[in-house]
């Protein structure tokens, strides 16, 4: 267990690429900030898994169903591991985190506050949203100061890369498909582009503690820009239109997006998005529906190992 004499001492440790371990006597505020960040990540993985799960029975063909089943397991598995790392910080127990989530008191990513109307909406989530998530996670992994989170992220990033590959394959199927398929994707892109831009969050404040303590390595706007430079040309190449009338290239060829209206993000962040209530209700139903599995495990461990 390590201790630091004061906040400056801790800051110097972080600036010198120090890695904080679970048993260290870290500043309370660092503990709380790291906890909140991991809790939101865990919640979002859980909602991502439930979102994928919804499409298992609806996905076209056995191959896609199998892929969605596997991705559901990945995401729920990620949530499972992240909740442990979060709970170990001692701010809330896993049960408290779940209670807060089901009661609508917690945050999860904005994209899970909206309805998926069509299969193309789900492809936007599987490709464009997963790619956005991967962009932000890679930036955290680059210099994350909290060791146990950094170690899990390395695996998560590796697996999300595989998800994206699957998402891109699905997108290509629609892009190479019939006029109806292409139109379906364009409608979905029109519906989701703003939410994808919102995903990176509003401009980072100069005194952001997560940047100062090296949980995040880059500002929200830098990550959004990185994403725009990569995905705008890609979507153009596939023949789709980005729903942003002010989108243009500057003299150096960089893509510049129009001003972002943040009102939808504020509603989503306070769990007042168009689908927030249903998503939360579905997550609680999923938790209750699987109570029998937990009961069996609890009963068999009460008397030691099951035969």
């Amino acid at each position, binding site marked *: 267990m390590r201790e630091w004499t004061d906040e400056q001492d801790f800051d110097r440790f972080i600036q010198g690429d120090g890695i904080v*371990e*679970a*048993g260290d006597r870290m500043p309370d505020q660092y503990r709380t900030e790291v906890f909140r960040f991991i809790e939101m990540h865990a919640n979002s993985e859980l909602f991502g898994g439930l979102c994928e799960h919804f499409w298992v029975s609806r996905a076209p063909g056995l*191959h896609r169903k*199998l*892929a969605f*089943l*596997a*991705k559901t*397991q*990945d*995401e*729920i*598995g*990620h949530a*499972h*591991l992240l*909740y*442990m*790392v979060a*709970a*170990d910080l*001692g701010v809330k*127990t*896993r049960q408290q985190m779940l209670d807060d989530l089901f009661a609508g008191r917690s945050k999860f990513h904005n994209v899970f506050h909206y309805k998926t109307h069509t299969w193309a909406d789900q492809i936007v989530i599987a490709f464009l949203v997963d790619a956005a998530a991967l962009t932000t996670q890679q930036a955290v992994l680059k210099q994350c100061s909290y*060791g*146990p989170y950094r*170690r*899990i992220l*390395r*695996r*998560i990033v*590796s*697996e999300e*890369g*595989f998800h994206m*590959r*699957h998402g891109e394959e699905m997108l290509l199927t629609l892009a190479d498909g019939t006029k109806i398929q292409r139109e379906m994707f364009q409608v979905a892109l029109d519906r989701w582009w703003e939410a994808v831009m919102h995903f990176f969050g509003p401009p980072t404040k100069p005194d952001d503690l997560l940047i100062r303590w090296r949980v995040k390595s880059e500002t929200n706007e830098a990550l959004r820009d990185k994403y725009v430079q990569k995905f705008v040309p890609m979507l153009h190449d596939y023949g789709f239109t980005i729903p942003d009338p002010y989108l243009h290239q500057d003299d150096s060829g960089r893509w510049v997006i129009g001003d972002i209206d943040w009102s939808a993000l504020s509603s989503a962040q306070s769990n007042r998005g168009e689908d927030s209530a249903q998503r939360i209700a579905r997550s609680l139903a999923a938790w209750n529906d699987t109570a029998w599995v937990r009961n069996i*495990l609890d009963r*068999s*461990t009460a008397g*030691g*190992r*099951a035969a």
Partner: protein
Amino acid sequence: MSGPPYPDTAAVRRAVMQVNDPELSGVTIGSLGMVKSVVVADDGTAHIVLVPTFLGCPALAHIAHDVERAAISSGASAAVVVFDHQDPWSTDRIDSVARTALAGLGIAVSSATGTACPFCGSVSLDQISPVGPASCRSAHWCGSCRNVVEVFRDARAPLTSLPIPTRRMSYAHL
């Protein structure tokens, strides 16, 4: 025989062995012991037999695709990839290169003599759940260094034979 000179089996085999596992960066399918046989026929077609680490592995189609491309880019005229479901894969097939790469990702390989934490080496890992994010790995908690660890399971061991989590003190608070 007519046609261009085709590569020998060894060259194609080398290329196939180097194909990366799509979910585990830096770990090749050769190192995981998934490549059972590679034979280049007289017409230049590479016949490749792979052993999946798990029957229902969702990455199989991607692996087959990558293997086909590797075989063709190493000179084979065509490639036929078959998965062998008779010969069960086991963790014994994972070589030391893959073991090191897996440890870097926080994944240990199950061992009858005690599975060690890839971060601190402690052998007192507590299993939390028989499957984690992937069917081929179980989730564990290391009470010594307080990290989450995944363990590559032996595909031959049925799920029902795995120890049921015994809420030990190391993670009772989680």
